[in-house]
């Protein structure tokens, strides 16, 4: 429902009795999504330490509306911070499917992006994009909290490009690799 406009929000001032805000449904829905991305509390290895720092006082991830949730059923974002072992792969897929749509995934660190220092290992999945679709990759070993925040802001940009006419943001799970939330590449 709603009037779909291509323009960004406009405030029409000269209306008797107050101001009127005209906006597009896409814009207002995406705005809400963008500033209330609740991540699942989920750390796998050393990268999780940097993720915790990003939540803590100095960097204060809360400013972005990032409030960690203890349950996947209340979370929008799966922040894979650390090494994904083959033993952990099946639980991660299960957690991913327990999250409500639209759900986003950030692969934090070299390990989650491509296997990192454990590329030759018998026990490590070479990138979490082999099991769940990833929206943003944050390189580094470990990435500094600033890098994670930058990656999160890139995700916010992607969210702003999502359109309701493409199904409310629910995208089919990509077989492998990254996912195009906005459909612009297609």
């Amino acid at each position: 429902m709603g009037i779909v406009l291509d323009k960004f929000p406009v405030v029409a001032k000269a209306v008797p009795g107050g101001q009127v805000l005209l906006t597009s449904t896409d814009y207002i829905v995406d705005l809400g999504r963008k500033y209330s991305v609740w991540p699942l509390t989920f750390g796998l290895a050393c990268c999780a330490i940097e993720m915790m720092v990003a939540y803590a006082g100095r960097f204060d991830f809360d400013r972005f509306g990032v409030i960690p949730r203890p349950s996947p059923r209340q979370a929008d974002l799966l922040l894979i911070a650390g090494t994904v072992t083959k033993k952990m792969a099946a639980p991660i897929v299960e957690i991913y499917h327990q999250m409500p749509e639209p759900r986003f995934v950030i692969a934090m660190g070299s390990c989650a992006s491509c296997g990192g220092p454990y590329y030759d290992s018998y026990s490590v999945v070479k990138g979490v994009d082999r099991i769940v679709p990833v929206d943003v990759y944050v390189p580094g070993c470990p990435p500094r909290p600033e890098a994670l925040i930058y990656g999160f802001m890139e995700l916010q940009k992607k969210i702003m490009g999502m359109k309701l006419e493409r199904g409310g943001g629910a995208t089919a799970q990509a077989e492998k690799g990254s996912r195009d939330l906005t459909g612009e590449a297609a």
Partner: protein
Amino acid sequence: MKPDPVARLLAALPRAESAASPVKDYPTLRLAAPADILAAARILKDELGFAYLEMVTAVDWLGPVSLAGFVSSANPSPFTKKAPPPPVAPAAGAGIAYRPVLDMLWSFGNLQTGQKVFLRLEVPRDNAEVPSLTSLFAAADWQEREAFDLLGVRFSGHPNLTKILTPDFLKGHPLRKDYAHEKDAYDED
């Protein structure tokens, strides 16, 4: 007064040697037979106050590492393509005697006196079997499962000797030198 664990253990187990291949400068005792470990652990725990089992592990002394244990090539870096692959293990000689044994290592701590004692025991690689310490130390349970999972040592008398770290589909014991990796669903195509 701190007890002297090595003298007490040597009195009870005359076939053991002390100071053969010590761990750093800690008192280290090399046992002669698998059956001795239970007796030694009982003396350490009940008489000498070494009530803390810190670690159960082993070293595989079979020759250099087999490259079959690596998932991809030995030298995947594009920057060092022309150079020969680095040696994965030093050659035999110069103090390294490769032999088909697993060198078991137990570490006991005494929290009152701050002492540590290490026990070593060589067992043949094939059919490696030692008595379990789970009857004395509850902490031995997971430590022994880990040694079983990664090195294939069987602990007789362990109540639940199953894999603990590696996924169920992984075959073999990855820390053995001749471990060959079988490709699974998560590996490179």
